[in-house]
């Protein structure tokens, strides 16, 4: 596996660590404490996106290996899950690009950066499976931002870095994705006979 260090997100402090960190601490112990607890959630994200257990395992494995090799760029105590997710998304998009050989297109959503806070409630009585099925029915690029924002609780900036898209695109995708998800969930509620 080739590690392209330019793809590894650098911490806002420039990746500089305090003087005692890399040489006098066991990097593995720090990695074990800060990064490994996030593997479960990272895997769930990967699994959601690729829908294939073998591929998800491969993706998470490569992500964690890259993270370990670049752990000197991570500053202890900051949002490690966001850092790992950014690596995961880079690995995933690299793989997608190498498969599809298609250039990144400008996103038409950029034109529509509405940021009104629109958080749809979920009607009671819906099962986990129904909620996830509704999420799966909306376009994947909307799923991504909803998962990173609402499940992972990343900031817009962290999402923009993870997905390599402009901030405005994050906001517009979030707005439109939530609206579509709301429509999907509303469609389920009458069928189930539940009220909001």
């Amino acid at each position, binding site marked *: 596996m080739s590690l392209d260090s330019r793809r590894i997100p650098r911490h806002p402090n420039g990746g500089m660590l305090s003087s005692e960190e890399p*040489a*006098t601490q*066991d*990097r*593995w*112990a720090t*990695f*074990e*404490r800060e990064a*490994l*607890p*996030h*593997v*479960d*959630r990272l*895997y*769930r994200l990967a*699994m*959601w996106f690729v829908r294939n*257990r073998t591929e*998800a*395992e491969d993706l*998470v*494995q490569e992500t*964690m*290996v890259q993270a*370990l*090799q670049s752990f000197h760029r991570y500053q202890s105590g900051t949002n490690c*899950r966001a850092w790992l997710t950014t690596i995961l998304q880079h690995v995933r998009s690299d793989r997608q690009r190498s498969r599809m050989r298609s250039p990144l297109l400008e996103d038409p959503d950029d034109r529509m950066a509405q940021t009104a806070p629109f*958080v*749809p*409630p*979920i*009607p*009671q009585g819906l099962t*986990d*499976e129904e*909620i*996830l099925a509704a*999420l799966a029915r909306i376009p994947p690029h909307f799923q991504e931002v*909803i*998962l990173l924002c*609402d*499940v992972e*609780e990343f900031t817009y900036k962290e999402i923009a870095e993870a997905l390599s898209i402009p901030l405005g695109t994050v906001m517009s995708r979030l707005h439109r994705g*939530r609206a579509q998800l709301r429509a999907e969930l509303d469609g389920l509620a009458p069928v189930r006979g539940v009220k*909001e």
Partner: protein
Amino acid sequence: MDSFANRLRQAIDRSPDLAPSPEFMTALRRDLEAQAPRRQSRMRTVHWLGIAASLVLAVVAGVAYRVYVRSGADLARAAVGDHRNCALKFNLAEKPVTLEEAAQKYNPAFRVVEHLPADDVPTSVGVAHVLERHSCLYNGRRFAHVVLKYQGAVVSLMMTSAEGAAAAPGSVDGMNVTAFRAGTQVVFLAGDVSMTDLVALVDSISGPLARALATV
């Protein structure tokens, strides 16, 4: 009406289809540990006295705060089973006994858990409150069991003798669990809280517990 984000997060976290297998978690951890860079270069220049002092300190403290892997899936499952059946469902075949009685009959180290962790444990994300301390038997394995209220959920600390192995951090049978080794014991923490919160609790309790257990 649940909040959108909470409900969605629960659905993701509880989905068995999205969960990693224990085998993958164990293999991943083993591979990463094998690739981990160890202390080198500048470390060689550290004075030998410093190294010796560190070693002595490590032995005295007995702290092995390492979330711990190998083939511990069975042990982790037993701990999660104990948490579910004892702390959550009160559904054990055998009635729990006091820690003192269990210490006399089975495992002297259990005596430490009578006082540690303290009844209120401050962590970086909130305070954990001890609700109950006892010793119980689940699936043939005896645990010292401390039940805590933490982040709005019931969380269990379960300690058992360390022969065999422990577990990788992660989800076991749908429950978040993590473990660390302390002296001759393995300590598990399990509960329906995020792994980040569980690790914050480990950070707060592992040091005092491991130091106390090192003297047993």
